[in-house]
């Protein structure tokens, strides 16, 4: 499939369009699609000024960045020195960051242009973008349905044509699942491939930064820029990401995870996934049916480890140094209690309470430590599968996008939407959701491809082949 990013940069370099035109067009579509509520803020003055600077560079024949004149948006949990950074939470309603996240710095250095900030579930807690303090984002294909989440705004911004790519963050599926729900590519790199510096932390051991794009090739282009050490994130691996240009090995061994095409999974989702497996087999891949027995514990593990980590990471939001402080609070305990009560959404509070509980004295061994041990078992199962398989295949989510409000009263049902994306997150593995047709109502379905640790370039290369097969 043709890269949107390459189209734009080639046209700008050839003088067929300008950065200014690209930004104007993006802002125009953003305005037209305002009712989807993908964006929390747009930066018209800033973006047009940047575009003019870049156009001047083009005109003067100066050295141009790899993303020259390409407009993009970032999920609003990325610190940006322009505009606000709210994480879609009231406690950061007034927060303006003095610095840019590393990912933003790297993209800007390549002459990409940030035109706005995208909606999300507050502090990225959720799978539908309904937990935003500023109201939900609507699905780009069916506006009565959810965008998925937590990077719902980023996915819809790409799917609705506002920008060719958007930054998201993925802790348990937050890039892949909204990618799947809106029919775009959502890529979660290996844990530690891209610096997390300047991204409002959710769970330190599974948070990753990644792009939402229309093609796997665009995911490669953006990832190549984002990957690598920056000196600000001690968990980043030494630079290893090298895009592959060769076509996929015809003899790739693909493991289809049977546990995720079983009962309880939407029939169309199952059908499309199995059909894709067949097509891959016809294209020369060896298809193996594999099982991941620990997967049934993945959500239980995730909802202990992740709340524990996020309860810790959210402790800094105390109303003391920045953010919104409750004005009625008369003493220090009230400053904490009342400001946090005002500033967090119900789902934030639910997870902070779970996290604080599982870390509390006397429960740590029974919950947190046990979950970490189970996590190791899950990782071992993945490693075992990769002894025989190059890549794993399963749906990205058990269903297509559900209706707005359908699951809001039932957190457990909401959590199930992450059942297939959570296992690779817990294992730190790279995974990507690529569009895999639609259901009978035309709702997008995603296929999740999972790679081995650090085989990001191989996985993306494979994803390009999958795209070709799906579109053939």
């Amino acid at each position: 499939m043709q890269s949107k990013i390459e189209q734009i940069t080639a046209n700008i370099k050839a003088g067929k369009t300008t950065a200014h035109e690209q930004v104007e067009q993006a802002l125009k579509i953003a305005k037209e699609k305002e009712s989807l509520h993908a964006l929390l803020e747009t930066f018209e003055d800033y973006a047009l000024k940047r575009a003019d600077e870049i156009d001047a560079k083009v005109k003067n024949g100066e050295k141009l960045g790899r993303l020259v004149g390409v407009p993009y948006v970032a999920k609003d949990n990325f610190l940006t020195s322009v505009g606000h950074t709210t994480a879609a939470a009231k406690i950061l309603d007034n927060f303006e960051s003095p610095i840019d996240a590393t990912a933003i710095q790297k993209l800007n250095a390549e002459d990409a242009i940030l035109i706005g900030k995208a909606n999300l579930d507050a502090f990225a807690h959720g799978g539908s973008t309904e937990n935003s303090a500023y109201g939900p984002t609507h699905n780009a294909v069916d506006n009565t349905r959810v965008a998925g989440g937590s990077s719902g705004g980023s996915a819809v911004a790409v799917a609705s044509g506002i920008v060719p790519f958007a930054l998201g963050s993925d802790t348990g599926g937050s890039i892949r699942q909204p990618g799947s729900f809106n029919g775009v590519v959502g890529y979660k790199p290996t844990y530690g491939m891209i610096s997390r510096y300047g991204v409002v932390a959710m769970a330190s051991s599974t948070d990753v930064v990644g792009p939402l794009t229309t093609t796997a090739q665009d995911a490669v282009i953006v990832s190549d820029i984002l990957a690598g050490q920056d000196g600000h994130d001690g968990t980043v691996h030494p630079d290893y990401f090298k895009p592959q240009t060769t076509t996929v090995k015809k003899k790739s061994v693909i493991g289809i995870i049977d546990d995720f095409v079983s009962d309880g999974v939407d029939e169309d989702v199952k059908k499309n996934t199995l059909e894709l497996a067949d097509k891959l087999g016809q294209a020369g891949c060896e298809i193996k049916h594999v099982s991941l027995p620990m997967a049934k514990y993945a959500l239980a593990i995730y909802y202990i480890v992740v709340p524990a980590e996020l309860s810790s990471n959210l402790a800094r939001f105390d109303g003391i140094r920045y953010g919104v402080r409750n004005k009625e609070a008369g003493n220090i305990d009230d400053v904490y209690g009342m400001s946090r009560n005002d500033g967090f959404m119900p789902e934030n509070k639910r997870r902070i309470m779970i996290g604080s509980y599982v870390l509390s004295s006397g429960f740590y061994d029974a919950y947190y430590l046990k979950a970490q041990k189970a996590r190791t078992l899950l990782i071992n199962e993945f490693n075992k599968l990769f002894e025989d398989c190059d890549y794993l295949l399963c749906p990205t989510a058990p269903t297509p996008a559900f209706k707005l409000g359908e699951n809001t009263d039932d957190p457990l049902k909401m959590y199930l939407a992450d059942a297939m994306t959570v296992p690779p997150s817990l294992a730190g593995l790279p995974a990507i959701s690529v569009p895999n047709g639609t259901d009978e109502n035309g709702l997008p379905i995603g296929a999740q491809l999972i790679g081995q640790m650090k085989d990001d370039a191989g996985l993306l290369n494979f994803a390009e082949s999958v795209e070709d097969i799906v579109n053939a």
Partner: protein
Amino acid sequence: MTSIGNAGEHGSEIDGDAKKYLIDGYLPTIGIECHVQLNTATKLFSSADNDARDAEPNSKVTEIDFALPGMLPVLNREAIRKAVRAGKALNSEIAHVSRFDRKHYFYPDLPKGYQISQMYQPLIIGGRVDLPSGEHVRIHHAHVEEDAGKLTHYSDHTLVDLNRAGTPLIEIVSEPDIHSGTMARAYAEELHLLMIYAGVTEGDLYNGNMRFDVNVSVAKPGEPLGTRAEMKNLNSFRAVEKATDYEIQRQIEVLKSGGEIKQQTRGWNEVEGKTVLQRTKENAEDYRYMPDADIPPVVLSNEKIAELQADFPIMPAEYRERFAKIGVDDSVVRVLLNNQKLAEAVAETQDMAGDKAAKRIANLFSSCLPSEDDTDQAKKALNLPSVEHLVELAKMLDEKKISSTNGKDVFAEMLKGDDLPIVIAKKKKLLQVSDSSAIEKMVDEVIAAPESAKAVADFKAGQEKVLGWLVGQVMKRSHGQANPGMAGEMLRQKLSTK
């Protein structure tokens, strides 16, 4: 070890005769946690300047120390190097793998809402501190952590200063091997020396570079350890000793009157000289410790540890042994050890010119350096002469080119500049005259002088002790430069033969 020690999970080890520690039949058992601020250039996890003395509040703070959203800690390797060297000074093992954990509590001095510390796998394991008394205290472990900020409370508001937030600390946790206020103080003083000698801290107690938490319990010998009370944040050796003594007495009195000791934290009121209850265990915080996933484990091979501990300075215990061997007085040794520069200079003098010269220099240091210059600043400002110059001075004294009194004057001058001692002695006319003809001339003048007549007569009559007065007369004429030994011999000779 004796059989009188208490049984407990972490059994106490007692040197020598434990009976000497008993008070009213109770054995005090004390463990000390000591926080040491490491003197790295930057903070433990940020590039902020780590030296905030005299700095404007919140001027040594980066986004990381301020806990902006999305900020990540990046471990300062130099802090690990210093901690590993501190571990050597403590005779500890260094863990091949250590990790950082988060300790949670809400307080405005803690911007992240958690302190990064090492709960489960500390860097420094075990160890032992030998005290000058011959006793020793075992170290349980020492861990690396970050300091918190500082709060200043006013009547209706509180101000937060985060300059100190993120300063690297090691917390040294002793075994409960201490049994008196005196021993607690000796341990604190020795730790202070060790950390300064290892070069890991500025060691300025007044500025909180080292702070002590003292845990005290008492029990009858042979019985399980008593319930402990902890006194936090003591910042002087005197406070460590006094607070410990007070707390031992308080607990014994409670027990003797049939009461019960509750686990608690107590503060030390310096003015009133007593400990006061701060909080009991029932309302202790739950810190919800968890591993910090943002910081990869610290992995150190044996080779790396050796590299980090290379070029290690001589420690106080070794100096103590060396100086005692060459007959330096205990009181002088204390003066020398109190300032690493002095101990080093004496040891180097010994290496270069032998025991006698070293002892001379040791005594000069002890008698000539003003004791009021015992502050950390004065110690740092002290500009000692080079060892070559010290050796030359020792040689001049040895060869009687200069009297011991004049030697002190020359030494005082040497502290002010770089002049050679011989140059100073000449300039100030302090060189001893050992030229026999010059001395003979003065001796003859003294014998002939009318005011000497009585003394000369007395000496001839067998009153030996007047010789001193006569030598004094020669010294006076020579402005102190005559070699008094030679003058005395010559006087005796001349007066005996006449």
